[in-house]
Protein backbone atom coordinates (compact mmCIF):
# COMPACT_ATOMS: atom_id res chain seq x y z
CA UNK A 1 0.00 0.00 0.00
CA UNK A 2 2.06 2.92 1.27
CA UNK A 3 1.53 6.63 1.13
CA UNK A 4 1.12 7.03 -2.59
CA UNK A 5 -0.63 10.33 -2.86
CA UNK A 6 -0.15 13.28 -0.53
CA UNK A 7 -3.28 14.32 1.27
CA UNK A 8 -3.35 17.80 -0.26
CA UNK A 9 -2.24 16.55 -3.68
CA UNK A 10 1.28 18.02 -3.72
CA UNK A 11 4.28 16.26 -5.26
CA UNK A 12 6.68 14.72 -2.75
CA UNK A 13 9.25 17.48 -3.21
CA UNK A 14 6.74 20.29 -3.49
CA UNK A 15 6.34 22.88 -0.73
CA UNK A 16 3.15 24.66 0.19
CA UNK A 17 2.51 28.09 -1.30
CA UNK A 18 5.09 30.61 -0.09
CA UNK A 19 4.82 34.35 0.33
CA UNK A 20 7.44 36.69 1.78
CA UNK A 21 7.65 40.40 2.48
CA UNK A 22 10.20 42.61 4.19
CA UNK A 23 9.65 45.81 6.17
CA UNK A 24 6.16 45.05 7.42
CA UNK A 25 6.61 46.49 10.93
CA UNK A 26 7.36 50.16 10.69
CA UNK A 27 8.82 50.89 14.11
CA UNK A 28 11.13 47.87 14.18
CA UNK A 29 14.74 48.16 13.04
CA UNK A 30 14.04 45.30 10.64
CA UNK A 31 11.03 43.11 10.02
CA UNK A 32 9.73 40.40 7.75
CA UNK A 33 6.72 38.25 7.07
CA UNK A 34 6.93 34.70 5.79
CA UNK A 35 3.99 32.53 4.94
CA UNK A 36 4.08 28.89 3.94
CA UNK A 37 0.66 27.38 3.42
CA UNK A 38 -1.39 28.16 6.49
CA UNK A 39 1.62 28.97 8.66
CA UNK A 40 2.27 32.69 9.00
CA UNK A 41 5.29 34.14 10.76
CA UNK A 42 6.07 37.76 11.50
CA UNK A 43 9.55 38.62 12.73
CA UNK A 44 10.64 41.95 14.19
CA UNK A 45 14.22 42.90 15.05
CA UNK A 46 15.09 45.58 17.61
CA UNK A 47 18.59 46.67 18.36
CA UNK A 48 21.46 46.36 18.84
CA UNK A 49 20.38 47.96 22.10
CA UNK A 50 21.43 48.07 25.72
CA UNK A 51 21.05 44.69 27.41
CA UNK A 52 19.30 44.32 30.73
CA UNK A 53 19.57 42.58 33.17
CA UNK A 54 23.15 43.73 33.24
CA UNK A 55 24.66 40.41 34.33
CA UNK A 56 23.67 38.96 30.96
CA UNK A 57 25.89 41.42 29.13
CA UNK A 58 28.89 39.94 27.36
CA UNK A 59 31.84 42.34 27.03
CA UNK A 60 33.23 40.26 24.15
CA UNK A 61 30.25 40.40 21.82
CA UNK A 62 26.63 41.34 21.44
CA UNK A 63 24.10 38.59 22.00
CA UNK A 64 21.04 37.42 20.14
CA UNK A 65 17.78 36.96 22.00
CA UNK A 66 14.84 35.31 20.26
CA UNK A 67 11.27 34.97 21.30
CA UNK A 68 8.88 32.58 19.58
CA UNK A 69 5.22 33.11 20.28
CA UNK A 70 2.12 31.44 18.93
CA UNK A 71 -0.83 33.78 19.26
CA UNK A 72 -3.77 32.39 21.27
CA UNK A 73 -6.02 32.08 18.21
CA UNK A 74 -3.30 30.73 15.91
CA UNK A 75 -3.87 27.03 16.22
CA UNK A 76 -6.43 25.16 14.16
CA UNK A 77 -7.24 23.19 17.31
CA UNK A 78 -7.43 24.31 20.93
CA UNK A 79 -6.72 27.87 21.91
CA UNK A 80 -3.04 28.32 22.77
CA UNK A 81 -2.69 29.56 26.32
CA UNK A 82 -1.00 32.98 26.15
CA UNK A 83 2.42 33.45 27.69
CA UNK A 84 5.45 31.24 27.44
CA UNK A 85 5.27 27.50 27.55
CA UNK A 86 7.83 24.73 27.78
CA UNK A 87 7.50 24.32 24.01
CA UNK A 88 7.89 28.00 23.12
CA UNK A 89 10.92 28.30 25.38
CA UNK A 90 12.62 25.43 23.59
CA UNK A 91 11.80 26.79 20.15
CA UNK A 92 13.07 30.25 21.10
CA UNK A 93 16.33 28.60 22.15
CA UNK A 94 16.78 26.52 18.99
CA UNK A 95 15.90 29.57 16.87
CA UNK A 96 18.66 31.50 18.61
CA UNK A 97 21.10 28.67 17.93
CA UNK A 98 19.98 28.35 14.32
CA UNK A 99 20.58 32.04 13.63
CA UNK A 100 23.65 32.92 15.69
CA UNK A 101 26.21 31.07 13.47
CA UNK A 102 25.61 33.55 10.64
CA UNK A 103 25.64 36.69 12.76
CA UNK A 104 28.64 38.78 13.64
CA UNK A 105 27.80 40.84 16.70
CA UNK A 106 31.39 41.42 17.78
CA UNK A 107 31.03 45.10 16.88
CA UNK A 108 28.34 45.51 19.52
CA UNK A 109 29.83 44.41 22.88
CA UNK A 110 27.45 44.32 25.88
CA UNK A 111 24.43 44.81 23.67
CA UNK A 112 21.53 42.66 22.54
CA UNK A 113 19.69 42.11 19.29
CA UNK A 114 16.11 41.17 20.02
CA UNK A 115 14.10 39.08 17.59
CA UNK A 116 10.41 38.65 18.18
CA UNK A 117 8.64 35.99 16.15
CA UNK A 118 4.86 36.08 16.26
CA UNK A 119 2.63 33.51 14.62
CA UNK A 120 -0.96 34.57 13.96
CA UNK A 121 -1.83 31.34 12.18
CA UNK A 122 -0.08 27.99 12.30
CA UNK A 123 -0.37 24.64 10.66
CA UNK A 124 2.89 22.68 11.08
CA UNK A 125 6.38 23.94 10.27
CA UNK A 126 6.09 27.02 12.46
CA UNK A 127 9.64 26.99 13.80
CA UNK A 128 10.97 26.79 10.24
CA UNK A 129 8.76 29.67 9.11
CA UNK A 130 9.90 31.64 12.17
CA UNK A 131 13.60 31.10 11.46
CA UNK A 132 13.19 31.98 7.78
CA UNK A 133 11.34 35.20 8.64
CA UNK A 134 13.83 36.10 11.37
CA UNK A 135 16.79 35.75 8.99
CA UNK A 136 15.17 38.19 6.58
CA UNK A 137 14.34 40.61 9.39
CA UNK A 138 17.95 40.52 10.65
CA UNK A 139 19.26 41.31 7.17
CA UNK A 140 16.71 44.13 6.89
CA UNK A 141 18.00 45.52 10.20
CA UNK A 142 21.44 45.93 8.59
CA UNK A 143 23.17 43.53 10.95
CA UNK A 144 26.44 41.99 9.79
CA UNK A 145 25.83 38.39 8.78
CA UNK A 146 27.77 36.10 6.50
CA UNK A 147 24.74 34.37 5.02
CA UNK A 148 20.99 34.10 5.35
CA UNK A 149 19.33 31.12 7.01
CA UNK A 150 16.46 29.24 5.45
CA UNK A 151 14.48 26.50 7.13
CA UNK A 152 11.97 23.88 6.10
CA UNK A 153 10.72 20.61 7.50
CA UNK A 154 11.20 17.33 5.70
CA UNK A 155 10.18 13.91 6.79
CA UNK A 156 8.82 10.54 6.19
CA UNK A 157 5.18 9.65 5.91
CA UNK A 158 4.83 5.89 5.91
CA UNK A 159 7.19 4.76 3.12
CA UNK A 160 7.66 8.11 1.35
CA UNK A 161 10.03 11.01 1.91
CA UNK A 162 8.26 14.34 1.60
CA UNK A 163 9.11 18.02 1.93
CA UNK A 164 7.22 20.51 4.09
CA UNK A 165 4.79 18.31 6.01
CA UNK A 166 1.45 19.87 6.82
CA UNK A 167 -0.63 19.01 9.86
CA UNK A 168 -2.53 16.15 8.23
CA UNK A 169 0.77 14.48 7.38
CA UNK A 170 2.31 15.04 10.81
CA UNK A 171 -0.77 13.36 12.23
CA UNK A 172 -0.96 10.60 9.59
CA UNK A 173 -2.18 7.36 11.10
CA UNK A 174 -1.72 4.91 8.23
CA UNK A 175 1.95 4.34 9.04
CA UNK A 176 5.02 5.70 10.86
CA UNK A 177 5.84 9.39 10.48
CA UNK A 178 9.06 11.34 11.06
CA UNK A 179 9.10 15.13 11.08
CA UNK A 180 12.53 16.73 10.65
CA UNK A 181 12.89 20.52 10.76
CA UNK A 182 16.10 21.61 9.03
CA UNK A 183 17.71 25.05 8.93
CA UNK A 184 20.64 25.69 6.65
CA UNK A 185 22.95 28.39 5.37
CA UNK A 186 22.06 28.12 1.71
CA UNK A 187 25.47 29.08 0.34
CA UNK A 188 27.74 26.82 2.33
CA UNK A 189 25.13 24.14 2.97
CA UNK A 190 25.98 24.11 6.68
CA UNK A 191 23.13 22.91 8.86
CA UNK A 192 22.25 25.09 11.85
CA UNK A 193 19.13 23.29 13.05
CA UNK A 194 18.28 19.61 12.86
CA UNK A 195 15.60 18.10 15.02
CA UNK A 196 13.46 15.03 14.62
CA UNK A 197 10.22 13.68 15.92
CA UNK A 198 9.67 10.05 14.92
CA UNK A 199 11.74 7.26 13.46
CA UNK A 200 13.69 7.07 10.21
CA UNK A 201 16.50 4.93 8.78
CA UNK A 202 19.94 6.33 8.01
CA UNK A 203 19.46 6.02 4.23
CA UNK A 204 16.07 7.72 4.32
CA UNK A 205 17.46 10.52 6.49
CA UNK A 206 20.19 11.18 3.94
CA UNK A 207 17.64 11.24 1.17
CA UNK A 208 15.43 13.60 3.19
CA UNK A 209 18.32 16.00 3.83
CA UNK A 210 19.12 16.04 0.12
CA UNK A 211 15.56 17.07 -0.59
CA UNK A 212 15.71 19.69 2.14
CA UNK A 213 18.80 21.22 0.58
CA UNK A 214 17.04 21.58 -2.75
CA UNK A 215 13.93 23.09 -1.15
CA UNK A 216 16.01 25.52 0.91
CA UNK A 217 17.71 26.88 -2.19
CA UNK A 218 14.24 27.72 -3.45
CA UNK A 219 13.29 29.39 -0.16
CA UNK A 220 16.55 31.34 -0.21
CA UNK A 221 15.70 32.75 -3.63
CA UNK A 222 12.36 33.91 -2.24
CA UNK A 223 14.12 35.52 0.73
CA UNK A 224 16.54 37.35 -1.55
CA UNK A 225 13.76 38.55 -3.83
CA UNK A 226 11.74 39.85 -0.87
CA UNK A 227 14.73 41.75 0.55
CA UNK A 228 15.63 43.29 -2.79
CA UNK A 229 12.04 44.24 -3.41
CA UNK A 230 11.98 46.51 -0.35
CA UNK A 231 15.05 48.47 -1.42
CA UNK A 232 14.30 48.45 -5.11
CA UNK A 233 15.04 51.78 -6.77
CA UNK A 234 11.71 53.14 -7.88
Amino acid sequence: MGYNKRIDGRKNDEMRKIEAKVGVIKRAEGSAYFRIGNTWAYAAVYGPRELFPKFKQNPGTGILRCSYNMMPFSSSHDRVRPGGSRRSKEISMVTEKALSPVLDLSQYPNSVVDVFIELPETEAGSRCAGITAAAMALADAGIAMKDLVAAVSVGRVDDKIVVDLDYSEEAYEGGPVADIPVAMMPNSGEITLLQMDGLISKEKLKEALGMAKKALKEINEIQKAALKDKYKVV
Partner: protein
Amino acid sequence: MSELLVKDKDIVVPGEVLAVGMDHLPGKGTYREDEKILAGQLGLVSIDGRAIKLIPMSGRYIPKTGDTIVCKVTDILMTGWRLDTNSAYSAVLSMKDATSDYIQRGADLTQYFNLGEWLVCKIVNVTSQKLVDVTMKGPGLRNLKGGRVFSVNTNKVPRIIGKQGSMVSMLKNATGCRITVGQNGWVWIDGEADKEVIVVEAIRKIEEESHTSGLTDKMKEYLEKVTGQKVTE
Protein backbone atom coordinates in the same frame (compact mmCIF):
# COMPACT_ATOMS: atom_id res chain seq x y z
CA MET B 1 41.19 36.33 -14.29
CA SER B 2 38.68 37.81 -11.96
CA GLU B 3 35.00 38.06 -12.60
CA LEU B 4 32.68 40.70 -11.18
CA LEU B 5 29.14 39.45 -10.67
CA VAL B 6 27.44 42.67 -9.58
CA LYS B 7 27.11 46.19 -10.88
CA ASP B 8 27.69 49.46 -9.09
CA LYS B 9 24.60 50.47 -7.02
CA ASP B 10 23.13 46.96 -6.99
CA ILE B 11 21.34 45.91 -3.82
CA VAL B 12 22.87 42.75 -2.38
CA VAL B 13 21.83 40.53 0.50
CA PRO B 14 24.06 38.69 3.00
CA GLY B 15 25.81 35.69 1.45
CA GLU B 16 25.50 36.89 -2.11
CA VAL B 17 28.61 36.36 -4.23
CA LEU B 18 29.96 39.70 -5.47
CA ALA B 19 33.05 38.60 -7.36
CA VAL B 20 35.12 35.51 -8.08
CA GLY B 21 38.89 35.63 -8.31
CA MET B 22 41.75 37.37 -6.56
CA ASP B 23 41.82 40.56 -8.65
CA HIS B 24 39.20 42.29 -6.53
CA LEU B 25 39.57 43.30 -2.90
CA PRO B 26 36.93 42.91 -0.21
CA GLY B 27 36.02 46.29 1.33
CA LYS B 28 33.69 47.32 4.15
CA GLY B 29 30.68 45.04 4.58
CA THR B 30 32.14 42.22 2.49
CA TYR B 31 34.35 39.24 3.19
CA ARG B 32 36.49 36.81 1.25
CA GLU B 33 36.03 33.07 1.26
CA ASP B 34 38.66 31.34 -0.86
CA GLU B 35 38.24 32.72 -4.38
CA LYS B 36 34.96 34.48 -3.73
CA ILE B 37 34.01 37.85 -2.30
CA LEU B 38 30.66 37.73 -0.53
CA ALA B 39 28.31 40.30 0.94
CA GLY B 40 28.45 40.46 4.75
CA GLN B 41 25.34 42.55 5.15
CA LEU B 42 22.49 44.08 3.19
CA GLY B 43 23.67 47.08 1.25
CA LEU B 44 24.35 49.00 -1.93
CA VAL B 45 27.38 47.91 -3.95
CA SER B 46 30.05 50.53 -4.45
CA ILE B 47 32.96 49.62 -6.70
CA ASP B 48 36.06 51.72 -6.33
CA GLY B 49 38.80 50.45 -8.61
CA ARG B 50 39.62 46.95 -7.41
CA ALA B 51 37.87 47.31 -4.06
CA ILE B 52 34.25 46.34 -3.57
CA LYS B 53 32.44 47.76 -0.57
CA LEU B 54 28.87 47.95 0.64
CA ILE B 55 26.99 51.05 1.70
CA PRO B 56 24.52 50.09 4.44
CA MET B 57 20.87 50.97 3.87
CA SER B 58 19.59 50.34 7.38
CA GLY B 59 20.82 49.69 10.87
CA ARG B 60 21.23 51.57 14.10
CA TYR B 61 23.79 54.22 14.83
CA ILE B 62 27.18 53.12 16.14
CA PRO B 63 29.15 55.88 17.91
CA LYS B 64 32.21 56.99 15.96
CA THR B 65 34.95 59.43 16.94
CA GLY B 66 34.49 62.86 15.41
CA ASP B 67 30.74 62.62 14.87
CA THR B 68 28.54 65.51 15.89
CA ILE B 69 25.43 64.11 17.51
CA VAL B 70 22.22 65.30 19.12
CA CYS B 71 21.65 63.63 22.48
CA LYS B 72 19.54 63.79 25.60
CA VAL B 73 20.59 64.04 29.24
CA THR B 74 19.43 60.88 31.01
CA ASP B 75 21.40 60.94 34.25
CA ILE B 76 23.59 63.14 36.40
CA LEU B 77 26.87 61.55 37.46
CA MET B 78 29.41 62.52 40.10
CA THR B 79 31.55 64.39 37.58
CA GLY B 80 29.35 64.88 34.56
CA TRP B 81 26.29 63.82 32.65
CA ARG B 82 25.12 60.60 31.03
CA LEU B 83 23.58 61.07 27.59
CA ASP B 84 21.31 58.95 25.43
CA THR B 85 22.85 58.79 21.95
CA ASN B 86 20.15 56.90 20.01
CA SER B 87 22.40 53.85 19.95
CA ALA B 88 23.09 50.82 22.13
CA TYR B 89 25.65 52.83 24.08
CA SER B 90 25.28 55.91 26.25
CA ALA B 91 27.82 58.73 26.24
CA VAL B 92 29.43 60.57 29.13
CA LEU B 93 29.96 64.31 29.12
CA SER B 94 32.46 65.20 31.80
CA MET B 95 32.53 68.57 33.58
CA LYS B 96 35.76 69.70 32.01
CA ASP B 97 34.43 68.96 28.52
CA ALA B 98 31.14 70.73 29.23
CA THR B 99 32.15 74.23 30.28
CA SER B 100 35.18 76.34 31.00
CA ASP B 101 33.57 77.60 34.23
CA TYR B 102 35.10 76.52 37.51
CA ILE B 103 32.68 74.08 39.13
CA GLN B 104 33.00 73.61 42.89
CA ARG B 105 33.23 70.06 44.19
CA GLY B 106 29.75 68.84 45.05
CA ALA B 107 28.05 71.59 43.08
CA ASP B 108 24.60 70.96 41.64
CA LEU B 109 25.25 69.92 38.03
CA THR B 110 21.63 70.34 37.04
CA GLN B 111 22.26 74.09 36.96
CA TYR B 112 24.22 73.51 33.79
CA PHE B 113 22.29 70.72 32.10
CA ASN B 114 19.21 69.20 33.60
CA LEU B 115 17.61 65.82 32.98
CA GLY B 116 15.75 65.68 29.69
CA GLU B 117 17.66 68.54 28.08
CA TRP B 118 18.94 68.13 24.54
CA LEU B 119 22.55 68.82 23.61
CA VAL B 120 24.61 68.97 20.45
CA CYS B 121 27.97 67.43 21.19
CA LYS B 122 30.94 65.94 19.46
CA ILE B 123 32.35 62.48 20.13
CA VAL B 124 35.99 62.72 21.18
CA ASN B 125 36.69 59.10 22.00
CA VAL B 126 35.13 55.66 21.62
CA THR B 127 36.78 52.67 23.29
CA SER B 128 36.70 49.07 22.08
CA GLN B 129 33.97 48.45 24.64
CA LYS B 130 32.03 51.38 23.18
CA LEU B 131 32.44 53.71 26.11
CA VAL B 132 31.79 57.10 24.59
CA ASP B 133 33.24 60.46 25.63
CA VAL B 134 31.75 63.64 24.23
CA THR B 135 32.61 67.31 24.42
CA MET B 136 30.62 70.52 24.25
CA LYS B 137 33.64 72.64 23.39
CA GLY B 138 33.63 73.52 19.74
CA PRO B 139 31.77 75.59 17.17
CA GLY B 140 28.05 74.89 17.04
CA LEU B 141 28.05 72.68 20.13
CA ARG B 142 25.40 73.88 22.57
CA ASN B 143 22.33 72.90 24.48
CA LEU B 144 19.11 73.07 22.53
CA LYS B 145 16.31 75.14 24.00
CA GLY B 146 12.79 74.85 22.64
CA GLY B 147 12.03 73.32 19.27
CA ARG B 148 11.52 69.64 18.77
CA VAL B 149 13.46 66.49 18.01
CA PHE B 150 12.54 63.65 15.68
CA SER B 151 14.47 60.68 14.43
CA VAL B 152 15.54 59.68 10.93
CA ASN B 153 17.42 56.72 9.45
CA THR B 154 21.06 57.27 10.43
CA ASN B 155 22.25 55.92 7.08
CA LYS B 156 20.40 58.72 5.29
CA VAL B 157 21.94 61.54 7.32
CA PRO B 158 24.62 62.37 4.72
CA ARG B 159 21.87 62.93 2.15
CA ILE B 160 19.88 65.12 4.51
CA ILE B 161 22.94 67.27 5.14
CA GLY B 162 23.96 67.31 1.48
CA LYS B 163 27.31 68.25 -0.03
CA GLN B 164 28.93 70.86 2.22
CA GLY B 165 25.57 71.13 3.98
CA SER B 166 23.77 72.28 0.84
CA MET B 167 20.55 70.42 1.57
CA VAL B 168 20.25 71.61 5.16
CA SER B 169 21.02 75.22 4.30
CA MET B 170 18.40 75.10 1.57
CA LEU B 171 15.85 73.85 4.10
CA LYS B 172 16.88 76.61 6.51
CA ASN B 173 16.58 79.30 3.84
CA ALA B 174 13.24 78.03 2.63
CA THR B 175 11.57 77.79 6.02
CA GLY B 176 13.51 80.06 8.36
CA CYS B 177 13.76 77.19 10.84
CA ARG B 178 16.85 76.45 12.83
CA ILE B 179 17.93 72.88 12.12
CA THR B 180 20.58 70.64 13.63
CA VAL B 181 21.10 67.20 12.13
CA GLY B 182 23.00 64.77 14.37
CA GLN B 183 24.99 61.94 12.82
CA ASN B 184 23.08 59.64 15.16
CA GLY B 185 19.80 60.24 13.35
CA TRP B 186 18.25 62.70 15.74
CA VAL B 187 17.24 65.99 14.15
CA TRP B 188 16.39 69.11 16.13
CA ILE B 189 14.30 71.85 14.53
CA ASP B 190 12.94 75.12 15.84
CA GLY B 191 10.78 77.62 14.01
CA GLU B 192 7.20 78.59 13.31
CA ALA B 193 4.84 75.66 13.77
CA ASP B 194 3.69 75.43 10.15
CA LYS B 195 7.26 75.76 8.89
CA GLU B 196 8.42 73.00 11.23
CA VAL B 197 5.85 70.72 9.62
CA ILE B 198 7.27 71.53 6.20
CA VAL B 199 10.79 70.67 7.37
CA VAL B 200 9.68 67.33 8.80
CA GLU B 201 7.85 66.40 5.63
CA ALA B 202 10.74 67.49 3.44
CA ILE B 203 13.20 65.41 5.47
CA ARG B 204 10.90 62.39 5.26
CA LYS B 205 10.87 62.88 1.49
CA ILE B 206 14.67 63.03 1.37
CA GLU B 207 14.85 59.79 3.38
CA GLU B 208 12.51 58.06 0.95
CA GLU B 209 14.24 59.26 -2.18
CA SER B 210 17.79 59.26 -0.87
CA HIS B 211 18.96 56.86 -3.56
CA THR B 212 17.90 59.03 -6.50
CA SER B 213 20.27 61.46 -8.17
CA GLY B 214 19.58 65.17 -8.57
CA LEU B 215 17.87 65.17 -5.20
CA THR B 216 18.82 68.75 -4.31
CA ASP B 217 17.10 70.09 -7.45
CA LYS B 218 14.07 67.93 -6.78
CA MET B 219 13.85 69.18 -3.20
CA LYS B 220 14.26 72.78 -4.37
CA GLU B 221 11.25 72.35 -6.63
CA TYR B 222 9.31 70.70 -3.82
CA LEU B 223 10.09 73.45 -1.32
CA GLU B 224 9.18 76.17 -3.81
CA LYS B 225 5.84 74.46 -4.29
CA VAL B 226 4.97 74.09 -0.59
CA THR B 227 6.27 77.47 0.56
CA GLY B 228 5.20 79.38 -2.54
CA GLN B 229 8.47 81.31 -2.53
CA LYS B 230 11.68 81.30 -4.47
CA VAL B 231 14.26 79.14 -2.73
CA THR B 232 17.98 79.82 -2.80
CA GLU B 233 20.50 77.12 -2.13
